[in-house]
């Protein structure tokens, strides 16, 4: 009996050790470049010191500014478009697909199984090489939305899976129009899923290089400027940019966490 529990203990802490190693592995580079962005010696910033020069350089660099605006537009439009599509798909699959639910679910998850670079290249083949259209923001937004759509669909499907549709019906029976039932009953109850989908799509489109790269031509986005700069050696500005993005993502995740926790504790 004693040896059994010892084995359990060993198994538990072996797994725990792998988990800790993995999280250290995932976060060490992020923390390293945080120090590097603030250091006078970006190559080996230990002991850490505080020097905001690279952030000032970043803020005053006009290429990054226009790239930031472009990325922001692409990410916002992508987040809205893919979330709306994903929401329709989720309701369609969970409520109206009947026996074909599995078929539609697999089809809607399809873009997940085609890598980003192939999505970018194939969309470019269609627009530019077949139709002769120049790359522009609209095509970049659409291609990004295809990629994000699957994530949105899966996030909202996971959240809406246990949604009680009778609540909508109850509202309709009480005289609400279907639209009003959606707006006043369903939307507040499923808001955390929709929010998660918006955030994930926004961040994916903000940081994805492959898709926008092939569909935008010369229009700069943040990842493409970062990639361009990378080819001429890493500069402290890039560390600063990376740190800001990481901080923003971290903040978004905290918002998501608080949202999810509140939803859980709220009486349903």
């Amino acid at each position, binding site marked *: 009996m004693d040896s059994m529990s010892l084995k359990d203990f060993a198994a*538990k802490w*072996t*797994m*725990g050790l*792998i*988990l800790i190693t*993995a999280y250290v*592995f*995932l976060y*060490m*580079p*992020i923390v*390293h*470049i945080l120090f590097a962005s603030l250091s006078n010696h970006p*190559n*080996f910033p230990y002991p850490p010191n505080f020097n905001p020069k690279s952030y000032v350089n970043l803020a005053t660099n006009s290429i990054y500014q226009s790239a930031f605006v472009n990325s922001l537009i692409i990410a916002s439009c992508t987040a809205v478009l893919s979330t709306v599509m*994903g929401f*329709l798909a989720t309701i*369609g*699959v*969970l409520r*109206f697909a009947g026996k074909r*639910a*599995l078929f539609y*679910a697999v*089809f*809607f998850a399809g873009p*997940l199984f*085609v*890598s*980003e*670079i*192939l*999505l970018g*290249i*194939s969309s470019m083949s*269609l627009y530019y*090489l077949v139709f002769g259209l120049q790359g522009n923001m609209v095509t970049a937004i*659409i291609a990004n*939305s*295809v990629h994000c*759509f699957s994530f949105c*669909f899966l996030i909202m499907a996971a959240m809406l899976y246990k949604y009680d549709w009778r609540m909508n019906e109850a509202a309709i029976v009480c005289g609400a129009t279907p639209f009003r039932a959606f707006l006043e009953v369903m939307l507040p109850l499923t808001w955390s899923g929709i929010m998660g989908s918006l955030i994930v799509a926004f*961040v994916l489109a*903000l*940081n994805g*290089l*492959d898709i926008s790269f*092939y569909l935008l031509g010369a229009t700069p986005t943040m*990842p493409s400027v*970062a*990639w361009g700069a*990378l080819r001429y050696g890493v500069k402290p500005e890039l560390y600063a*940019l*990376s740190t800001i*993005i990481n901080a923003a*993502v971290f903040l978004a*995740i905290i918002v998501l*966490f608080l949202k*999810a926790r509140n939803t859980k504790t709220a009486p349903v």
Partner: protein
Amino acid sequence: MSEPNAAARKRVFLYIPTTFLVLFFVLPLVALVVLSFWQTANYKIVRDWTTLNYVTLATESAYIIFFLRSLLMAILVSVFLVVVAWPIAFFIVRFGGRYKLIFSLLLAVPFLSGEVLRLIALQGMLGPTGLINGALMRLGAAPLRFIMYSNSATFIAFVYLYLPMTVTTIYLSLLNFDLRLASAASACGAGRLRVFSEVIWPLNLSGTMIGFLLSFIPTLSASLAPRFLGGPNGTLYGMSMAQQFGESGTWALGAAMGVVLVLFSIAALVILSLGVNLRRTGFTGMER
């Protein structure tokens, strides 16, 4: 609710996203196939049907080597990720308690910060003057050459890029798995190994396969990581494909490479889903 009303609603909810995907996901892939049977000469598309691109890919040794290297890399990375992701996901589900959500969301931060920025961060770790080699040299040791601009560096990069995705997939699978089944098996006298191999593993096999595929497919066609970290002998298929669309301007050949990658992704999907017996994985269809 009247019948035509319900049918109309069904049409809207399913047909809008379906049309969206057909137009902007399926049609581009068709265009890729069409393009792969055309030719490029002097940076212009020549619309003559030919299989020359595929002949080139099948006969030129450079492309064959790139492809085999990519395939081997993708298999090694995905197998390694599944092996590592299982204990992590299992630990979170089994012992995470009320911190489960935090553990899983902490995986999302590195995942969402984007491939380019993560490669920059990784370069800060692995490069000649990065954290690891910098620390080694300060301690008076020789720098590790194998983590700079080599296939091992690319391997580490892929593990870094796709670990969050694989762990999350297996985590979600385990989260929906009833751990009481494992307790029941061990109460009936099954040993630890037997509980795992006959209950836990088969019932989470489809989730594991999806996790495998979600690292296998992007690794197979990756272009950024090898280009940045792979060094002189690290050219992978996706990187070569990106070059056809960039510097060389041989789009048709690049499109053929894209088709090869899509076909192999589909093949991996089919082979793995044949290996999964849905009944044994506890899948009972979409219950509503």
